[in-house]
C-alpha cells in the first residue's frame, strides 16, 4: 500500500505545484483584484440603481423606481449641487496651483546640497504624516476668531481680527490654506526626487551658453521635469478632489451653517448620513465619480503624450 500511495501522493503534489507555477500570473494577481472588485463593483452598481429610485429615510425602506428624475433635479439644482461643484473645482484648482508653484520653489531651494539638509527634510515630512483630522483641529484653534493665534498676530501689526473659518467668504480660502500647509511637502518630495534624477549636462551646457538662472530653469529644467510634474499633479488632484477630513474637522458635518465649505464630497456625505436621502445622494455620487474619472482620463492621456 505504502509503495503504491507514496508516488501517487508525490505526483499529486507535484502536479499542483506545476499547475500553480503555470498559472502564477493569475494566482498572484487575482486575490487582490477580487478583494477590491467586490468592495467596488457591487457598491457602484448599487449606487447606480439607487440613483434611479426615490430611496430615503432608511437604507432598508421600500423605494420606487423613478428613472432619471434624480438626475434632472440634481443637474437643475442651482441651490446646492452647482455651488458645491463650483467649490470643489475652486478648492482643487487653487490648492493645486499654489502647491505646485510653492512646491517647485521649495524643491529648487533644496536641490543643491547644504548644511542642515536633514533638519529641513524632517520639517517637510512632519505635516505629511500628521493626522488630517488633528491638523484640522489644530488650525481651528489657531484660526479661532477670539482666541486664535492668527488674529493675535494680526493684532501686533494693527490689522483688525478676521473671521477666518467662521466667515462665509473666508472659510473656503482658509481651508485651502490648511490643505496647502499639509500637502505642499508632498509636491516638494516628488519634485525633489525628479530633480535629483536629472542629469547635469543640459544645465551645464545652458550655463556655458550664457543662460541666466531663470532661463536655465524655464527652458531646460522645467521641460525635463514635465513628466514628474504631471505625476505630482495627478496624485495630488485625486486627493484634493476628495478632500474630506480637513473640511469636516474644521466646519463640521454640513460644511458649516451656511454651507461655506460644502464641496461635492461633503454634500454627498451629508445627503447620505444626515438627511438619509439615498436616491439623491447616489445621483450626486455618480456625477462626482464621472467627473473624477474623466479628469483622470484626460490627465493620463496627457501623460502618455509627453516624451
Amino acid at each position, binding site marked *: 500500500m505504502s509503495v503504491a500511495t507514496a508516488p501517487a501522493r508525490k505526483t499529486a503534489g507535484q502536479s499542483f505545484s506545476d499547475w500553480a507555477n503555470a498559472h502564477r500570473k493569475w494566482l498572484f494577481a487575482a486575490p487582490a483584484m477580487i478583494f477590491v472588485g467586490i468592495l467596488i463593483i457591487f457598491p457602484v452598481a448599487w449606487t447606480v440603481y439607487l440613483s434611479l429610485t426615490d430611496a430615503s429615510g432608511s437604507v432598508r425602506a421600500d423605494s420606487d423606481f423613478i428613472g432619471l428624475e434624480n438626475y434632472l433635479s440634481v443637474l437643475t439644482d442651482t441651490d446646492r449641487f452647482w455651488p458645491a461643484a463650483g467649490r470643489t473645482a475652486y478648492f482643487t484648482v487653487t490648492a493645486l496651483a499654489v502647491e505646485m508653484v510653492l512646491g517647485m520653489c521649495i524643491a529648487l531651494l533644496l536641490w543643491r546640497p547644504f548644511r542642515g539638509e536633514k533638519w529641513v527634510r524632517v520639517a517637510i515630512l512632519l505635516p505629511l504624516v500628521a493626522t488630517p483630522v488633528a491638523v484640522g483641529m489644530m488650525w481651528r*484653534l489657531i484660526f479661532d476668531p477670539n482666541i486664535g493665534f492668527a488674529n493675535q498676530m494680526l493684532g501686533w501689526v494693527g490689522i483688525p481680527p478676521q473671521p477666518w473659518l467662521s466667515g462665509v467668504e473666508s472659510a473656503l480660502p482658509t481651508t485651502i490654506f490648511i490643505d496647502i500647509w499639509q500637502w505642499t511637502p508632498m509636491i516638494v518630495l516628488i519634485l525633489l526626487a525628479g530633480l535629483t534624477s536629472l542629469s547635469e549636462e543640459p544645465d551645464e551646457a545652458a550655463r556655458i551658453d550664457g543662460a541666466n538662472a531663470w532661463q536655465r530653469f524655464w527652458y531646460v529644467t522645467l521641460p525635463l521635469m514635465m513628466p514628474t510634474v504631471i505625476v505630482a499633479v495627478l496624485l495630488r488632484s485625486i486627493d484634493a478632489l476628495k478632500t474630506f477630513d480637513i473640511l469636516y474637522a474644521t466646519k463640521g458635518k454640513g460644511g458649516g451653517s451656511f454651507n461655506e465649505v460644502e464641496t461635492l464630497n461633503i454634500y454627498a456625505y451629508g445627503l447620505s448620513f444626515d438627511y438619509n436621502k439615498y436616491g439623491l445622494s447616489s445621483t450626486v455620487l455618480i456625477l462626482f465619480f464621472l467627473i473624477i474619472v474623466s479628469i483622470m482620463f484626460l490627465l493620463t492621456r496627457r501623460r502618455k503624450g509627453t516624451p
Partner: protein
Amino acid sequence: MSTVTELPESFAPVLAPRRKPLRSRAYKAFRVCALVVVVLALLAPLAWMVLASFKTNVDIYDAAKSLVFTPTFENYSNVLQRNNYFVFIFNSFWVAFASTLLSLLLGVPAAYAMSRFSMQRSALVVLMARIIPGVSLLVPWYYVFSNLRMVGGFSVLILSHMFVALPLIVYIMMSYFDSLPVELEESAQVDGLSPIGAFRLITLPLSLPGIMTAGILAFIFSWNNFMFALVLSGASTKTLPVAIFDFVSYASIDWGGLMAAATVVTIPIMVIALFTQKYVVSGLTAGATKG
C-alpha cells in the same frame, strides 16, 4: 570653477562672469532665509498644538500667556483616563496593523505578477480604489455590513482600511519590482528552482526594503484614515481620529483636551515616520521619476 583657472584670463568673463561668485553668495543668504521661513511655517503650527495641550483652558484664552505659562498635565490625564483613550489607541493600532499585514499578503504577490507580466489593466482595477471617492462606497458598505451585523466590529474596520492600504501597496511594490532585474530569478530557475520558488527565495528577500516602505506607508495612511471609521466603527471600536470629536460639542470646545487628544493621535505616527524616514520618503515618491 577649475576650468576657468586653467584658461587664459581673457576667456574668463565669457565662461564665468565676474558677478557670479557675489551673486551666488547673495543667493546663499537668500536661500538660508527662505529655508528658515519654510521650516518655521511647517513646524510652528505643530508646536502651537503641543503647547496648547499643556495649557489650561483659561491660559489658552489669554493672549499674554501665548508662550510663557505654567505647564499642566491635566489635559493629558483627562484624555487618557476619563475618556478611555487607551482603548482607542489600541483600536487604532490594531486596525492599522491588521489591515497593513493583510494588504501586504494580498498586495505583494499581486504587484509582482502585475509588474512581471505587465498587467496594466489589472493594475488599474486595484488602483481604482485610490481614485473612487470613499463616500460613494460608504452607503452600500453600510447597508451590507449592517445586515451582516458587522458594523461596530473590528473586521469591517480592518476590511475598509485594507481598501486604503492595498492600492498604496500595489502601486509602491509595482515600481519596486519594475526596478528589480528579472535576470536574478531567471538564473535561479536555471539552477533548478520553480518560478514560485524563485519568487519566494530570491525576489521576496531582495524586495524587503520595498515591502518595508509599502508597509510603513500603508500603516500611516490607515492610522490617519477618518471617514471609514466615522461611519463603520462602534462605541468600543472607535479609532483615534474619530475619538477626537468627543472634545467638540455644539455648545463649547474643550480646547486643552482637544489639543492633547490631537497630540496623542499625531505624535506616535510622527515618531514612526521619523525613525523610518528613508522608507516614507521613497514610498511617497514611488513612481514619480519614471514619467
